[in-house]
């Protein structure tokens, strides 16, 4: 993981300069969702092996960061783990940029606790109660008498936005539920994974690619009458796991040229194979 990040940074700083300076045609800037960085980086590495004349630079920063770069014209492809908002589309059109959406993969959002925590299944209602601060103690969920430490991503994260809209607000646009102000805002999925692995009363959420043996993914059910499902690839493909979302790619207008070549590769059988290798779920 860490080595991969270093490679990303190295690649970015090493060649991004030439990329900006020359603005030549076989150079692509890809930016956005931290959830998708590893996946898109793997695509880019394999793609560049096949097409050594092209160069792709992949950086994270969060879905919002990617989309705002696409709008300001500082990247060619934005990775996003949430849908673009109508506000963002308006802003883009003002700058004569036409965001074009492509579904590239699926992701299950895992809710994780420390392996020592006895709580191992929760309903969406309970999750909403926990993250809005209505449920404050693990005792209320059948766990030990300890106050719950909420871990959330920063507001620039697509995962944050998705979780708020689909869990806290249950997909209801009129709802005004918010994360409890006491929720700790951490700047990366890895930071949440680290904190959960050393704090027995913490609960956090992130893309299922980040699950390791140091965290325990909670089984989630739509309501208390449904079956509790764990975030596995099978369950996400079958649509059984209730917290899954599309991973999206946004381009300026319909993809053409190099952008199209790269996206075609990502959606090809080989590209979707890489999706499985990086613990996400392919679209076909």
């Amino acid at each position, binding site marked *: 993981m860490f080595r991969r990040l270093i490679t990303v940074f190295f690649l970015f700083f090493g060649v991004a300069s030439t990329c900006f300076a020359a603005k030549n045609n076989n150079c692509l800037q890809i930016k956005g969702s931290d959830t998708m960085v590893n996946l898109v980086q793997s695509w880019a590495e394999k793609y560049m092996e096949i097409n050594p004349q092209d160069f792709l630079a992949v950086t994270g920063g969060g879905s919002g960061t990617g989309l705002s770069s696409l709008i300001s014209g500082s990247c060619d492809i934005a990775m996003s783990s949430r849908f673009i908002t109508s506000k963002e589309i308006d802003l883009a059109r003002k700058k004569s940029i036409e965001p074009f959406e492509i579904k590239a993969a699926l992701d299950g959002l895992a809710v994780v606790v420390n392996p020592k925590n006895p709580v191992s299944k929760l309903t969406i209602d309970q999750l909403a109660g926990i993250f809005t601060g209505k449920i404050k103690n693990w005792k209320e969920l059948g766990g030990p008498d300890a106050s719950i430490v909420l871990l959330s991503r*920063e507001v620039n994260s697509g995962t944050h936005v998705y979780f708020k809209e689909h869990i806290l607000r249950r997909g209801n646009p009129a709802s005004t539920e918010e994360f409890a102000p*006491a929720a700790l805002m951490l700047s990366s999925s890895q930071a949440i994974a680290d904190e959960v692995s050393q704090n027995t009363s913490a609960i956090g959420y992130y893309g299922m690619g980040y699950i390791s043996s140091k965290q325990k993914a909670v089984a989630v059910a739509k309501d208390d009458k449904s079956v509790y499902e764990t975030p596995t690839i099978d369950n996400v493909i079958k649509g059984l796991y209730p917290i899954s979302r599309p991973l999206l790619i946004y381009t300026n207008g319909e993809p053409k040229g190099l952008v199209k070549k790269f996206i075609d590769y990502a959606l090809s059988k080989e590209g979707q194979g890489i999706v499985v290798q990086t613990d996400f779920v392919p679209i076909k």
Partner: protein
Amino acid sequence: MRKIKEFIIEKLILLCGLASIFFVILIFIFLLKEGLALFKTVGVDKFLFGQKWYPISEPAQLGILPLILGSLLVTFGAAVISIPIGVGCALYIAEIAPPKTKEFLKAGIELLAAIPSVVLGFIGMVTLVPWVKNIFHLPTGLTALSGSIMLAFMAMPTIVSIAEDALYSVPKSYKEGAFALGATHWQTIHRVILPAASSGILAAVMLGIGRVIGETMAVMMITGNAAIMPNSILQPVRTLTATIAAEMGEAVVGSEHYFALFAVGIVLFIISFAINVTADLFLHKNK
């Protein structure tokens, strides 16, 4: 010929001097222009005294009171820790330490100043945070206290070096006079040297605090960034600086959120400007 050369060099230096002021003014104008745009849609009182910070909701809630209090709490904690240690250290270096120890300590302090804040933040995250959690039996160690302790390390070099200068510049005759009257070393320090250097020490303290309130990376890593109204130093807080750093990348240029972050910048600017002006007043009073 020499006169012309002299003239050109003089003017060039003048230009360099003016450049810094010019840049400050430009930055301030830009900050005002972007930040004040927020108040077309959000009232000043709602912004400054609102207790909820949900910048990306519809409609956005942009109250920065928890952020201001968070910044002040962390700064206050850091001041309480760093001022006694810093001033004590300066006293020791300036008055008591033998020359060799003095050189050694001064080098150490300079080295402390040279550690990048992100490194201090990282060290704090892996060592201090679990320690705070276990000692106080807290649900999490990402608290204002952890931030204060780490920031105290950052303020100390500033406080020590400026306070030491102030102590050093107390005229020797004061000290000799006190000794001649039969005062002990401690009586001399306590009754003569400290009062004589007090304005310089206050300036040192203010500059140290100014450094703390503007610090970003370390606080973002170890204070937890939860925008709650803090009622204890053992709670997570979100500071003004960390908010700008964490959210600026996401804010779409020209959106309300973007203007709000610049308005937060204005608030920060005003706070550190006030601190620097106070420090300056103390320094000039000295002379």
